[in-house]
């Protein structure tokens, strides 16, 4: 800045080109979803004449009627996804915090070995074990049962990892000691003192658990074969079938309905979500 014109000129050029690039990327990121939302209000014949428009039309209701007259049942899918996501989020966050607490607050022999195991498991994607998982669930008769999708989230290595990272600097051992002196049991200390102190980190992790559970397609599509049990992403996959082939407007509307809850959550909590993503990257 102090070095006079040439530098200021180049830095202005830099800023302008940076803005142009950012705006282009923003348009690329937003455009598909804007088209989706606008087309969900347009009739099929309007879309066939001009598939892109920036002006919403008035066929939202008509599209909705067509959409729900067939197999697509957004309410059912919403409820099923909600049940699975809420309970697996609760399981994952509560038990992961508990595991992280075991790793941070107590000095036990196998502690570091256990943590190493968790770090290794972090790398195993669920997909590669899905065949055995399916066979096992089939054997115990839990296919088409939400429990098979909820209970495994009790062991969520990623959440344990982040809770541990957060807990190490944030958990004052003195408070635990004084609670012990007051005669509180270890379980009460965890539930009534540690959990409230960890709630900001738990909230962040809860958002991610919820979203990833809500968006999961692979395991639910293997395990849930009854129409009554379909989750939102499985419902979405129905939109590609032959029955909606010519109903462009309702396909866009169906897609829009499936992302609506996620979009609402995102724009309400975007500050925390982005802070949470940033936290995830800072390892060690």
């Amino acid at each position, binding site marked *: 800045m102090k070095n006079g014109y040439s530098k200021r000129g180049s830095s202005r050029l830099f800023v302008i080109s940076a803005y142009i690039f950012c705006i282009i990327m923003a348009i690329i990121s937003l455009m598909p979803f804007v088209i989706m939302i606008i087309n969900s209000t347009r009739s099929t014949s309007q879309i066939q004449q001009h598939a892109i428009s920036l002006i919403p039309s008035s066929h939202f209701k008509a599209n909705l009627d067509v959409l729900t007259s067939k197999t697509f049942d957004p309410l059912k899918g919403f409820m099923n996804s909600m049940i699975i996501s809420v309970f697996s989020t609760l399981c994952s966050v509560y038990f992961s915090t508990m595991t992280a607490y075991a790793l941070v607050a107590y000095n036990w022999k196998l502690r570091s070995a256990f943590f190493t195991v968790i770090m290794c498991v972090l790398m195993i994607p669920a997909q590669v074990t899905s065949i055995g998982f399916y066979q096992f669930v089939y054997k115990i008769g839990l296919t088409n049962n939400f429990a098979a999708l909820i209970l495994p989230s009790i062991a969520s290595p990623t959440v344990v990892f982040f809770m541990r990272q957060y807990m190490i600097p944030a958990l004052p051992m003195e408070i635990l000691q004084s609670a012990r002196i007051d005669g509180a049991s270890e379980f009460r200390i965890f539930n009534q003192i540690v959990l409230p102190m960890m709630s900001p980190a738990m909230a962040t992790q809860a958002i991610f658990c919820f979203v990833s559970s809500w968006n999961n397609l692979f395991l639910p599509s293997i395990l849930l074969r009854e129409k009554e049990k379909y989750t939102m992403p499985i419902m979405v996959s129905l939109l*590609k079938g032959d029955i909606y082939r010519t109903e462009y407007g309702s396909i866009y509307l169906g897609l829009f309905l499936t992302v609506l809850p996620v979009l609402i959550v995102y724009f309400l909590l975007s500050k925390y979500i982005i802070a949470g993503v940033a936290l995830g*990257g800072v390892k060690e």
Partner: protein
Amino acid sequence: MKSKSRLKRLSYAKYGYIFSIPFIAAFLIFSLYPTIYTAVLGFTDCRGIGNNDWHILENPFENFKEILSNDSFKLSLKNTIVIWMMNFIPQITIALILTAWFTSRRNEIKGKGIFKVIFYMPNIITAATVAILFNALFSYPVGPINDLLVSSGVKDTAYNFLVDKKAAKIIVAFIQFLTWYGNTMIVLISGVLGISPDIYEAAEIDGANGIQTFFKITIPNLKTVLLYTLITSLVGGLNMFDIPKLFLDGGPDNSTLTTSVFIYNQAFSGSYMYNRAAAASMIMFIIISICSAILFYIMRDKDAAKLKKEAKLAKKESRKRGAFV
């Protein structure tokens, strides 16, 4: 007194085990057991729904041999890697450029917050939805993209992207790119913000320009974060399922068939060949483990490893000395 305090610590240690029980139990039942089960199934003749009467094959590695010589599997592996590369290279490049701009100390970019929110948004949207949305966007003869290309004069007539093998691959890679570049950028930015500002100040005093600081300071200091991004992206990329499955179901002509889609099709449609799917899963498992191990080895912090080694040696030495005294 001393023994008493030790006793107390010992009695608390058991809670470490108790509080870990739920995790360990769920892990053993829902993760370790299925993994071993999958591995075992790979050596058997298990196929068909509800088949409980399966045996280890006479030649246990038959399924593995069959999969490794299966043209579809080879093709799917190639596709998976090609699509991942086509997504990852532009993704990390653009994420790094955006990171450099957003953390630039000389030129503050306004509206960073809004850009971050917009760039990250595709990541939070159900991948299944994005895949089907893109299928609709590229539809032929009247889809939004064709409409745009024709009415802007780029193309004379609508083009059927969905039957073009190359175009289909590029679109899948692009969707993958679109959903992940914002995430990568935010992770990288937080990594840069974690670098001590003193280093940058020193560089500024020494007269380093923006590009020099970026390559000489930012990149080397981002090593761990880059490793994290690379590994998570690689593991995710090798398991790519939702987008290729729902975009064109592996087509056209298997050009977007990824290994996960291959495994799914083997196991859960048509002939229900669980044994082969299990063998393919295990091959993928091994590939993923090897890739992560290699990456860890290449990107490991050599200085830290050296320090650790020295510390260990010193400890040993002192222990030895202690024993002698």
